[in-house]
């Protein structure tokens, strides 16, 4: 699974309230979520994000609530991959479960607007703008398998149970 896109870069500890405020979470209309994605962090984000863009953050991305509306808002906005030094646990599982690609890069050199090439299968991120390549933390096989099925719904439809 490969993605190419432009980087939007933010900082550490971006919590789920800043990804999608609680007041917008009570809906099954995913576009409504996308319209307010990252609103309290960067009010311009939902307007400037383009399909295929890549969200880059620091430590502990997605801390706080278990709301799956957070990765859903990001995915629906057009973001193809989220890169972080590391993720909060529930967010990480939720992203994989809804088929949003996520990759943990303990170290990277990425500036806003850089063009990135991400290979989820090998866990590598190549920054085409500065020519550097970074290597991600390996995910458990079950998560790779869920992501390959584009989320847990398809995975369980196919396998009926969890296979480690």
């Amino acid at each position, binding site marked *: 699974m490969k993605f190419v896109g432009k980087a939007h870069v933010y900082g550490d*500890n971006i*919590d789920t*309230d*800043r990804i999608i*405020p*609680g*007041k917008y*979470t*009570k*809906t*099954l209309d995913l576009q409504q979520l996308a319209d307010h994605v990252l609103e*309290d962090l960067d009010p311009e984000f939902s307007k400037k994000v383009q399909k295929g863009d890549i969200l880059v953050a620091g*430590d*502990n991305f997605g*801390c*706080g*609530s*278990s*709301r*799956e*509306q957070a*990765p*859903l808002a990001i995915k629906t906005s057009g973001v193809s991959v989220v890169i972080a030094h*590391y993720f*909060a*646990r*529930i967010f990480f*599982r*939720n992203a994989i*479960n*809804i088929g949003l690609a996520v990759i943990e890069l303990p170290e990277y050199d990425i500036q806003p607007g850089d063009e990135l090439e991400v290979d989820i299968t090998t866990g590598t991120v190549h920054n085409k703008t500065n020519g550097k390549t970074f290597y991600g933390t390996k995910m*458990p096989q*079950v998560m790779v398998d869920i992501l390959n099925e584009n*989320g*847990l*719904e398809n995975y*369980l*439809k196919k396998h*009926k*149970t*969890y296979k*480690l």
Partner: protein
Amino acid sequence: MPQTIVEKIISNHAGKKVYRGEMAVVDVDMVMATDTTAPLTIQAFKRMGGEKVWDPEKMVLVIDHASPPPNQAIAVLHDLMREFAKEQNIKLYDIGAGICHQLMVENHHVKPGQIVLGADSHTCTYGALGAFATGVGSTDLAGAMLTGSTWVKVPDTIKVELNGELQAGVYAKDIILHLVGLLGIEGATYQAIEFTGEAVKAMSLDSRMTLANMVIEMGGKAGLVDMAGLELPYEFEPITPDEGAKYAKVISIDVSEIEPRVAGPHSPDNVKPISEFEGVPIQQAFIGSCTNGRLEDLHEAAKILKGKKIHPNVRFLIAPASRKVYLEAVKDGTAQILTEAGATFLPSGCGPCVGTHLGVPGNNENIASSTNRNFRGRMGNPNSNIYLGSPSFVAAAALNGEIVNPQKVLDEEGN
């Protein structure tokens, strides 16, 4: 090889002995979803091809986050939950019954040694009963509804020893805030915490729930409170860690040295001694939530406010954690004391904590709150500042119109 509590519970549900870092598929004892997460859960369950929940006795739905519904869109989502509950023969707690985590414990839907998944991050609260309970998203929960199982990575454990006796005016909330400040918002990511020590053994169930509740504020997967001293209205077998079990680290805290703690805006780990926040003007005060909306919390607030009136600049809101808590507070006179002081009682539920309705703050306002999160915009307005502390801290702020040390107010009362 010796095991921690979480390793034992997961082993009991995996059919084999497992240790930190290992992967396991486990049987799940109970699942729960709320009106924030259940609509997506039900949708995912159906998309997975789900027709019948694996065991309707092991699932609970709770309408608590936007309850009663503030608008048509949310009312429709509540209906969707009611329909599903009826069709599947699942227990549903409707508006006003209370907060999911309070109801799960109060009504014995969760028991020591179990594995419980809740589509709410504060599911870790049931660690107060010695259950391995953790928050998941809607789709993960749907997977458990379909299969009766889930996959887990066995977490490493941080052991926190709490010794000594708490000062007057200092509570489990101050201890957990102190720890969140110490470890940071990411300090227990992917890990479990075991709470033990003399101070834990002396704690009520209410206080144990406060302790376990905020483990997620350090990124923790579960918070297991030592079952020694735990009193429950039914028999249970305590699970204790083995001598020589391996811990990621051990933290010892003398709780007698802890003064009231407050987390300032905009992160629960921005924790300082209350003296550093004294004098901050307060426009709204809130007691409630799965962290601190229980009977003993209302009792502490009543101690501060008995026979007094709140400051005219303050709006003081209280949402009891459940109808049962509210009824007990009515019966023992606590609700009267607080109402006479100027409090506004809200329906039992999550209330203003999640920013949907029932107390959204105005611009540039400061809120004293007994809840667990103060991220920017948490209460529905990004231009407001939330200060987290114990119910006594909130009551003292409501009384004075500014942040004061509740110990001083209690001293004046001779309490």
